């Protein structure tokens, strides 16, 4: 699947993050390979938040990790702020990492339990050898205050002394301490209670404005994604099946999988009728033996003979609305 000219044609600016034909495969031995990500391409423009949604096992976290080079992808190109990350050696890559940072789903296990918060948050600066010890601590204090923690009392404490929401604030501070331009968020609020989730979502929006961040936001919670993201890419079994602005995606999904996904969102309104779009056999096929043709055809209610054979290319349905489907839903 080749990279399609995406909405960049519509935008005067050049993308800050460019992912081209990203493929990640894991050999399992005995000739079996897991095709976790297969030919994924997208751009993220400066100041934009791109959402990446899909069910567990669809490759969204693997995509994020491949962008971070944790581990590097099997093939494909990742360009961030003009530098081709996938072509860099380890020393140059480490230097370049100041531009892109990541936060993870489980805020408690992503922090070292034996270190205090000052050490945890200042670590990226230590690795980069930035400034003096005093300057690094001053910067640490500044970001801790920015994420809503009382830096003076937090610095000497260890992760177990904080709640899940506070730990996620510490993770965000650690990511922001090197002043990155790109923040990759992998399910940052999925482990949090709804009242804390709202605090962290708002905090991410504030941090985005304050530090002029560009974000890749991964979540399986489609309501959160709608709130946070300007554009959304929907992934299914290692491929992008639809990519458009979030308003269009929710109002007029063109891919049958997106439509099914949207219909299954439980909404907190008892007057709304439940209207789940049925999919054939609710299980995801294995990524070690992805179905030929369109990978969604085994569950698609509209699948025809052609879908079993031909891989649908990702095409632009309307300007800025990309779909990989032979028979997209006509919402007109």
């Amino acid at each position, binding site marked *: 699947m080749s990279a399609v000219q995406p909405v960049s044609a519509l935008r005067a600016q050049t993308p800050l993050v460019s992912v081209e034909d990203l493929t990640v495969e894991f050999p399992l031995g005995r000739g079996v390979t897991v095709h976790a990500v297969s030919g994924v391409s997208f751009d993220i423009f400066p100041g934009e938040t791109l959402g990446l949604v899909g*069910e*567990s096992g669809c490759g969204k976290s693997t995509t994020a990790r491949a962008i971070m080079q944790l581990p590097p992808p099997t093939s494909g190109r990742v360009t961030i702020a003009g530098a081709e990350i996938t072509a860099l050696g380890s020393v140059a890559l480490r230097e370049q990492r100041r531009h892109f940072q990541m936060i993870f789903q489980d805020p408690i296990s992503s922090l070292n339990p034996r270190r205090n918060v000052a050490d945890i948050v200042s670590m990226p600066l230590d690795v980069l050898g930035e400034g003096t010890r005093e300057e690094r601590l001053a910067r640490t204090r500044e970001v801790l205050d920015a994420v809503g923690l009382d830096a003076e009392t937090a610095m000497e404490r260890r992760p177990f002394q904080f*709640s899940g*929401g506070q730990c996620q604030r510490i993770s965000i501070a650690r990511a922001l301490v090197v002043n990155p331009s790109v923040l990759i968020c992998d399910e940052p609020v999925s482990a949090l*209670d*709804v*009242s*804390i*989730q*709202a*605090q962290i*979502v*708002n905090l991410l*929006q504030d941090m985005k404005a304050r530090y002029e961040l560009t974000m890749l936001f991964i979540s*399986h919670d*489609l*309501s*959160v994604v*709608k*709130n*946070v*993201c*300007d554009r959304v890419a929907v992934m299914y079994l290692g491929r992008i099946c639809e990519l458009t602005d*979030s*308003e269009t995606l*929710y109002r007029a999904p063109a891919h049958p999988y997106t439509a*099914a*996904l949207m*219909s*299954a*969102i*439980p*909404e*907190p*309104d*008892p*007057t*709304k*009728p*439940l209207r*789940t779009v049925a*999919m054939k*056999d*609710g*299980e*995801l096929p294995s990524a070690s033996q992805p179905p030929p043709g369109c990978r969604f055809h085994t569950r698609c209610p509209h699948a025809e003979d052609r879908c079993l054979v031909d891989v649908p290319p990702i095409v632009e349905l309307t300007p800025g609305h990309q779909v990989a489907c032979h028979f997209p839903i006509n919402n007109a």
Partner: protein
Amino acid sequence: MRTVRAPVNAPRPEPLLVVERLYTHFQTDRGLVRAVDGVSFTLEQGVTLGLVGESGCGKTILCRTLMGLLPPSAKIPGDAVVRFDGNDLRRLSEKALRSIRGKDVAMIFQDPMTSLNPVMTVGAQISESLRLHLKYSKTDARDRSVELLQAVGIPAPQRRFNEYPHQLSGGIRQRVAIAIALACEPKLLIADEPTTALDVTVQAGILDLLQREQGDRTMSMILITHDLGVVAGRTDEIAVMYAGKMVERAPTRNVFQDTRMPYTRALIDSIPLLEQATHTRLSTIPGQPPNLIHPPPGCRFAPRCGRVDERCRAEEPELRSTEPPDHLFACWHPA
């Protein structure tokens, strides 16, 4: 066994489940944790109750207390009453309890991988309760198990019967757990976050299944969840818990449309909605849930509440109702 619901005009029979003054405390090194701190409620036959609250509010411990599935460190002080189908479960022997648990009251858990036995086939696990409680013969149990697997929407039930849990996906595993729970036709099914570990499309299928089975059997159900979206379309009534207390209890529609308790309102308001435009600022609840070792005096939500005054910080509000009488709330200044 009562299987038919009493006519509306007849004098109401006793509810299927009556819980009064229930406290569940844990002695820990740091002090006494008041996980459930004075909960009273009833559940009618054939009703689905959504039990909602944030992690640590006591919803799971409350249900484990009902089932008698508490660790030894748990203490139930006072004169708590748990009356189920006429039996006071608090006074029953472990042996008598065991004949009720898994038969008349069944439970399904969040993670089907840990609740299923990894070294027993799916079929053996379903047959086990049929043979134990209903004294089925081996072949009858097998036939009935395959029927149950079919009923919960598992394709190729004959083949699945001989498979082990690790061979199944998360959604199928949870369907197996439901088949086991329904095997003995329970009068009450307690589902503790049954879909939290599952994908949204799989979740919809599991919730549909539970709703259908509940309706077909006039079984009562307690659906525990932290997700207000899950309970909105699927329950008759909702009980909201906060810091070990039940703070609001009403028919589902009233909870959402005529919310009385400020905590419930704040919880609903903090959910991002699909209708909202992108980047809509979410309303948040400041602070965090209180420590259950030293809960604040008065109303436990007072430190985070926008309507708080002196009385809230001093006096604890009881669960009461004004109009309509089936809408209970624990607040001095209801909305």
